């Protein structure tokens, strides 16, 4: 693939559980090096969209291309790091150091019956460094704050050196005063290491000055563009996305199968 190739291309994507449509006619392109935030209220289909991108749900209609490859043929999952919403619900009494947890991110890459080599240890240290937890390397993970734990899981995803990092509601366990520095750390990863970031969140206020692109999702994709344009959106545009009027909208825009 070449450098201008988008990392994710989603075309005409629709998805339903039972009878309820969750996503309709989604069109989304994520260029390489972007820092995209997908925002939307609870139940807006954000998690479903992530699951489809990660191949955890089967496509019903439309197409997804990852790194230029159709998702059905895509094999190189090592290129994609994922930090799930559940990551911080781990057993906080688990006796493992930050270093050990981060090194577990290499398990699949190294392969069974093989051991960590010097090069792997360098990668682990680099990943811990890049989330700013160097001095906590040998602490037990349970002794860290919620925000620091979230950084550990990001480091675990980074250690296998993915080109794309997907984060599902990463600030859920982070205290309000640390959210800002958390996003700064993500912006730093995006700029300095060139990692494309896809972030799903419902807090729209804090992110807009850190991310490069914003996508507003509520079954339909209402806005997808540069974050500067997003800031100029009218308040009532936002209430459309978050408000109840949206249901009326969805009937008018109902799509038949093609």
């Amino acid at each position, binding site marked *: 693939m070449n450098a201008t190739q988008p990392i994710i291309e989603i075309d005409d994507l629709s998805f339903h559980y039972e009878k309820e449509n969750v996503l309709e006619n989604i069109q989304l392109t994520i260029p390489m090096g972007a820092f995209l935030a997908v925002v939307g209220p609870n139940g807006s289909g954000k998690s479903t969209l992530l699951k489809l991108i990660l191949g955890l749900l089967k496509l019903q209609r439309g197409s997804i291309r990852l790194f230029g490859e159709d998702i059905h043929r895509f094999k190189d999952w090592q290129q994609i790091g994922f930090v799930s919403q559940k990551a911080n619900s781990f057993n906080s009494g688990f006796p493992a150091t930050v270093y050990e947890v981060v090194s577990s991110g290499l*398990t699949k890459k190294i392969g069974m019956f093989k051991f960590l080599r010097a090069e792997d240890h360098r990668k682990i240290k680099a990943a811990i460094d890049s989330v700013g937890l160097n001095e906590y390397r040998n602490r037990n993970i349970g002794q860290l704050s919620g925000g620091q734990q979230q950084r550990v899981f990001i480091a675990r995803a980074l250690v296998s050196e993915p080109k794309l990092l997907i984060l599902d509601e990463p600030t859920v366990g982070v205290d309000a005063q640390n959210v800002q520095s958390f996003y700064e750390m993500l912006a730093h990863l995006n700029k300095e290491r060139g990692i494309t970031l896809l972030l799903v969140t419902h807090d729209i206020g804090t992110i807009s000055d850190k991310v490069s692109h914003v996508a507003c999702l509520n079954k339909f994709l209402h806005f997808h563009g540069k974050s500067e344009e997003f800031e100029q959106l009218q308040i009532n545009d936002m209430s459309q996305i978050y408000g109840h009027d949206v249901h009326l909208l969805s009937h008018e825009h109902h799509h038949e199968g093609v």
Partner: protein
Amino acid sequence: MIKDIFQFEFLQNAFLTGMIIGVIAPLLGVFIVVRRLSLIADALSHVTLAGIAASLLLEKKFLVMSGLNPLYMGMAFSVTGSLFIEKLRTVYKHYQELAIPIILSGGIGLGAIFISLADGFNTDLFGYLFGSVSAVSRADLYTILFISAFVIIAIILLYKELFLLSFDEEHAKASGIAVKSIHFIFIIMVALVIAASMRIVGILLVSSLMTLPVAASIRIAKGFKETIFYSVLFGETSVLGGLLISYYLDLAPGGTIVMIAVVILVVTIGLKKISSSRPVNNGVKS
């Protein structure tokens, strides 16, 4: 006692066996405890009892298998029991701990029936329940040696996978680790180690050798490897100390070993209280 060890083969057997299980029981125990499966050891030890009772019954009533070591039948039952637990855990997805009492009571029930069918056994059974120094044969020692070689090699080779599976099963699955196969190997190892440890500490106390040293270790250890190191250290100390004391004071070795492990646990809890001024959440989460 050192002199006695050179003199009597049964003492050599007991001590060597003790030293081996002092390593492998806490080693596996670390993975059992952090995965919150502590009670599996109890369930499987009771199934092992059923196997032992079955073997003794066949020997007494039907004179078949009279040359067969009851340990083998115990192991066969234990492994079968572990497979049932796995099956039940998938049947009751939302009540996974339910598998443990089902298998535990099944094991005791079966054992009780076998014992009554045999009109009771001689003192043999007491040795199986609470451990016995004199009961360990050379054949037992070799069997246990073989099992521990298998367990240690498997843990070294699969350490990365076992760690990830213990810490974050979801992530292990998502990243394409062969979670089912690894777990299968793990549960077979647990079943084998329980049967192996039973000779020394006895069926009723086997699980304590897998959990107490670990419980003490996670109070003070930093990281997973250190947890393993302290668990094995405490396990070994308990077994060797327990065997020595029980030999001199003529006590049941199983009980003595477990009580030493309890003392170590209490000391580590006390130490942690004294040494730490900062709030630490390092115990098993409630």
